């Protein structure tokens, strides 16, 4: 605190949309219309909402400035509403957050709490929950265990979702080709190109904060909450733990024509000097960006592997290098951040003798992660849906993937075996978002039917539909800090600008009669139980292949198609809280230990403080002061 030195005059006035300084760091002249981010602290009843545990109040509202269009883009003077050229997909602001500890060893209580929550809820129950499924999988892939630990250790120590116990069946683990030799000195590899000096036409401009290094050193807090956010063609790096001028970007990258749509931070490789970010673009390009050194490299250049937009992107849990990108044509592609592109041609269609047979499900691995050709990207390539994949989520145990697509399907995929397990359908319309409960038992989806659907992963059925949004549901998240063994808390945001909070309890949801009736023990398809220590031969409820509905179909590949349950037979859940928190359609929701963050299409990032004294007795944060 005391050593906090006032920063040099800010590049951008902290308030207002007035003209910015007419020069940029790189010497390039800045267009006069450059606007800067703003911050506001509105108060009042309209900026707060109540739940059982107390009042959430708006801490701050950062408005990211929408960058002016790139000079190369011809300004649209009179838009023709009937112009039939399909517009490239664009997305509202989404954020990726990461906590970087600048002072090592100051583990916050909440962090511990979170770990324990996950340990109790997440891991223990996740194992319970997914046991039936995992027992189905024959685990011949248990050899590669320690090969990655060398690189993992540095980053993994702080991450709640530690993956040590999962080493054995990590994605792609059995493929020796994928094993990365540990780098010298445990040093993390950086991308190749300097983004500031890049002469690529892909990157338009980079604006670094003048005192970036200083800021990074002197933030004063034991840890920094970095937020990376996209808006239009810009990509901001903010420090929400900063004492002042939080709204100022530490760096801002402007791209030329491509808009970043989705991005993710690798929680495993983070360190005080290294952050791995992966960004997916409207043009299909993917950028691996390391903001600390402002290095980047570009993958799937100009759509070399897949030229449809990247609609969701995530690091594969537990992997330093691999990430999964959902493309607009319904494919999921695994890339390696350090590999070069190579034009992709599917390797194999199906089993021998059936090369012409395309699986009825439409899912098949055009390139398996176990392929031995791993010199170039893609590492794996799966066709999942016929229409755009809007989102996907990894199960807490990292073994399964829930994928939602524009055709209204929720697909559950075993990523280790690269196998489609279940196909569910939305009530109607496309599905837009998906997430797993911290214990891996439930999956939430939200979509164009204005509903949130709760699916039981274990029972392979719909549990409930939640109505309350007035428009499409844009994002969903569980609030692990408010979940306990019995009650789940989750939130959702929609295009109606509303934030809704929901509670559902297992007791309320379970249908003992139906479940008890169908509980075949043991695995169904391939009886080989896995021999790992995580096996629990005791009678966990196994996945039922038949739901009570007659129309459930199982195809030759063992994919289970679940019919749409009629409304009359599905329980309906109502929200405990509904509040219009933004004038614009919301995009994302994130729960943090001390706050809820919402973002909207127009660049508002709102931070909502949790009630001062929660039932969870989270120790008040030292640096959560405003």
């Amino acid at each position: 605190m005391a050593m906090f030195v006032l920063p040099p005059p800010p590049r951008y006035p902290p308030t207002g949309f007035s003209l910015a300084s007419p020069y940029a760091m790189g010497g390039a002249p800045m267009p006069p219309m450059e606007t800067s981010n703003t911050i506001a602290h509105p108060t009042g009843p309209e900026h707060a909402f109540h739940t059982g545990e107390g009042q959430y109040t708006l801490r701050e509202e950062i408005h990211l400035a929408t960058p002016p269009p790139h000079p190369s883009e011809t300004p649209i003077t009179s838009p023709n509403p009937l112009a039939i050229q399909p517009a490239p997909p664009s997305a509202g602001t989404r954020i990726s957050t990461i906590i970087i500890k600048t002072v090592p060893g100051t583990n916050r209580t909440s962090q511990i709490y979170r770990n324990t929550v996950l340990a109790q809820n997440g891991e223990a129950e996740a194992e319970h929950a997914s046991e039936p499924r995992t027992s189905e999988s024959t685990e011949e892939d248990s050899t590669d265990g320690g090969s990655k630990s060398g690189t993992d250790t540095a980053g993994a120590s702080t991450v709640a979702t530690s993956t040590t116990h999962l080493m054995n069946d990590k994605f792609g683990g059995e493929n020796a080709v994928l094993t990365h030799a540990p780098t010298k000195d445990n040093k993390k590899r950086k991308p190749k190109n300097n983004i500031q000096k890049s002469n690529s036409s892909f990157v338009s401009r980079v604006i670094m904060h003048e005192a970036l290094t200083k800021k990074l050193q002197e933030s004063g807090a034991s840890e920094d909450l970095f937020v990376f956010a996209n808006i239009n063609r810009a990509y901001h790096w903010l420090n929400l733990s900063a004492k002042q001028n939080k709204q100022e970007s530490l760096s801002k990258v402007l791209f030329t024509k491509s808009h970043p749509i989705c991005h993710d931070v690798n929680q495993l490789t983070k360190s005080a000097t290294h952050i791995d970010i992966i960004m997916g673009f409207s043009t299909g390009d993917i950028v691996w960006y390391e903001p600390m050194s402002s290095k980047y490299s570009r993958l799937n250049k100009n759509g070399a592997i897949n030229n449809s937009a990247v609609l969701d992107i995530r690091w594969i849990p537990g992997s330093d290098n691999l990430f999964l990108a959902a493309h607009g044509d319904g494919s999921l592609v695994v890339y390696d951040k350090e590999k070069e592109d190579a034009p992709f041609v599917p390797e194999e269609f199906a089993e021998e003798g059936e090369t012409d047979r395309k699986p009825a499900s439409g899912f098949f691995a055009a390139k398996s992660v176990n392929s031995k050709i791993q010199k170039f990207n893609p590492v794996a390539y799966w066709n999942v849906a016929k229409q755009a994949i809007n989102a996907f989520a990894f199960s807490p145990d990292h073994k399964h993937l829930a994928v939602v697509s524009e055709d209204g399907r929720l697909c559950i995929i075993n990523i280790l075996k690269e196998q489609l397990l279940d196909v569910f359908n939305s009530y109607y319309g496309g599905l837009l978002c998906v997430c797993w409960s911290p214990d891996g038992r439930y999956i939430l989806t939200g979509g164009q039917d204005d509903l949130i659907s709760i699916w039981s992963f274990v029972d392979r059925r719909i549990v409930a539909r939640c109505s309350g949004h007035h428009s499409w549901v844009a994002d969903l998240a569980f609030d692990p800090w408010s979940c306990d063994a019995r009650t789940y808390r989750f939130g959702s945001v929609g295009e109606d600008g509303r934030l809704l909070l929901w509670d559902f309890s297992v007791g309320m949801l379970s249908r003992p009669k139906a479940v008890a009736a169908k509980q075949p023990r043991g695995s169904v398809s391939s009886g080989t139980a896995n021999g790992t220590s995580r096996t629990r031969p005791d009678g966990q409820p196994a996945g039922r292949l038949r739901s009570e509905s007659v129309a459930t179909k199982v195809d030759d590949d063992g994919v289970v198609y679940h019919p749409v349950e009629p409304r009359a037979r599905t329980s309906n859940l109502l929200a405990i809280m509904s509040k219009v928190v933004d004038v614009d359609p919301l995009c994302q929701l994130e729960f943090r230990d001390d706050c809820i963050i919402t973002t909207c299409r127009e660049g508002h990032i709102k931070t909502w403080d949790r009630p001062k004294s929660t039932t969870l007795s989270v120790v008040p944060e030292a640096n959560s002061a405003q």
Partner: protein
Amino acid sequence: MLQCLYYSKQFREAVISYPRKSLQPGSPNGAINANSRISRISTEPAAQNGRAKAGVGAGVTAGTGNQGPLARRGSTPASAAVSPNPQKPEDKDSPEAKKKAALAAGPMLNVELGNSKNYGMEESLFTAMKDLFESIVSSESRTGVVSPLRFVEVLKMKNELFRSQMHQDAHEFFNYCLNEVIENVEDHAKVTNQSSSSSSSSSSSSNGSKDGSSSQLVPGEAASATDSTAAVSTSVSTQSESTMTLSNTGWVHDLFEGALTSETKCLTCENVSRRDEPFLDLSIDLEKHSSVTSCLRNFSASEMLCERNKFHCDVCGGLQEAEKRMKIKRLPKVLALHLKRFKYMEELGRHQKLFHRVVYPYHLRLFNTTDDAEDPDRLYELYGVIIHIGGGPYHGHYVAIIKSEEHGWLLYDDEIVEPVDKSFVRNFFGDKPGLACAYVLFYQETTLEAVERENQMEEERAAAKKAKLNKTDAKADVKKKPSKEKVNGHANGHAIPVPLEDVPDVAGAEGPKTPTLGPQVKTPTGPPPVPAIPPTYLIPKSPVPEATSPVSPVVKSKKEREREHREEKAREKEREKQAKKEEKEREKEAKHKNREEKENGSSSHGLSRFRPPSISKKPFGFSKTQEREREREPVPPLPVPLPTGSPNPGDTSSSAAATPTPSTTSLLQSQSPLTASTAVPHEPAPRETFSERYVNGSAAGGHGHKEEKKHKEKEEKHHRASKMLRKKLSILG
């Protein structure tokens, strides 16, 4: 005539779109029902005349009832056959063309009336509409404009509302048309409710609208109806329909009509009274940032009847406070949703257009059904959107987006019809610049299976398109290829193993073969055969730019060329793949012979598949690794030393030359006219992979793991080399 042209676009638009719109429910139904009700449809034409004319309609369900226009169209082609000739004006806004079309429409009418004596109908909106439909359907030309001149005349004749030159409301028009059609049919059927039409117009506001919340608008509407500015009109339709449905169940009803139940619960005595009302469409109020679903929910949200709106309870006798809500009791086959974008602002004293963002999904189910509703989970799909463009309620322009069976989504803008992307439909939520918003949405019933089938079809169609595209590319490539191969094979003078001789043959064989595949793939009708290559792999996606790129003589930027290069490569591979597939079919036995190799554990058998029989007998020792690498890791044959990293162009050529690829020639070619360069330079890389397999296979036979290591090294080298090549090419370019 002038007047007609001058007449609001809205009319033209409406007429152009409505026919199609009402056609659409027919055709999809026809298609969907065709599966389940073939018999009925086949009998339809016969039964049709009698039914429609006699107004019997009893045993005919809505699905077929809807066939009204459709089936009739089908049944009368002979009579209408006279008409098509004059109806082929080009898709232009030329008055002449329109006039011609209009004239064509005129005779049509006569033909129609002459033909169906049974009709004996007076000229009415219905007959006019029918004529339109028939002329469209019977017209052989796919393009062309049908001017609804006669229709408009009839319309004007029938309803003074439309006689002025004011812009009309599409929804109102829609209602009017439907009702008029119902009426015409009924009149004709000599059902004894002739008075319904007059009563409907006179009893305007008495009945109230079916939509409780819009009731306050009704008086205003009735008043404004004369000056034809009513923007929100539900009254006309509801009245006539409510009076009529009691006595008649015509096909229009079957199709469009649903039933609402208004449940009124008296808060005093708790007595619930229900009253059913039919509806042809639902007018829903909008709220900011909402969805159609949500608006429909609001539509059914309970409403308090209090103060001046008190409810007269029969049980307690007297006006009481009550709670009222509207639910849908019977779901229509076609759900027309009218978004009340034009709201009367009291403070302004006039209507104003609302630009709320209202999202609408491609599919819909209704939440607000009664408990006893039949099939409450009925799935609807969006098939038509009427869009209003303009800032206010008093003027503007209507266009329609319609989902057609054969052509996907089409945008109808007066005379212009354009195919549009599916995502285009989403441009009219109301928040985009340009003042265009969806105004009326048409959903028709469907099933999940139908939707899935359609998805499949879409995919296949896209695949066919791509295959076609690739075919043309492939053709172009193939032309050059065989000759080059020869050059290559001999020019390099490598000791090419004998089997290699087959390579050119294989490539050559593709030439004649691919085209044969073409027609199959192209055929839009019927379930298109699954193309050889799942479309998802095709790297190029947008067809237009690619198709042009190889021939484009324009000097390309470095980047562009780079991309093209890659695309080209991908395509090349694609083609190979296709060829491979064919090869495989022809050489099943060869495959069988290769079984032993495959038993190595790899399920990949592309190589063996590809291999001509003679090769396949060769003892292949290399593992699946190599086999798999065939796709993208071309490795030069062993005997040739590989200079790597040397920056001179010879490097690339030598690495390429190591393979039996004429890299030198290709490089030369790339220097030659740029037109060729876009296509030519891409040859080497895929070629390499292509022949390399054989070289590899034969040269590297039986080396096992060692081989693999070498392989890796080389692969790296090669990668570098190919990068160089690319670089060089771009420099040359």
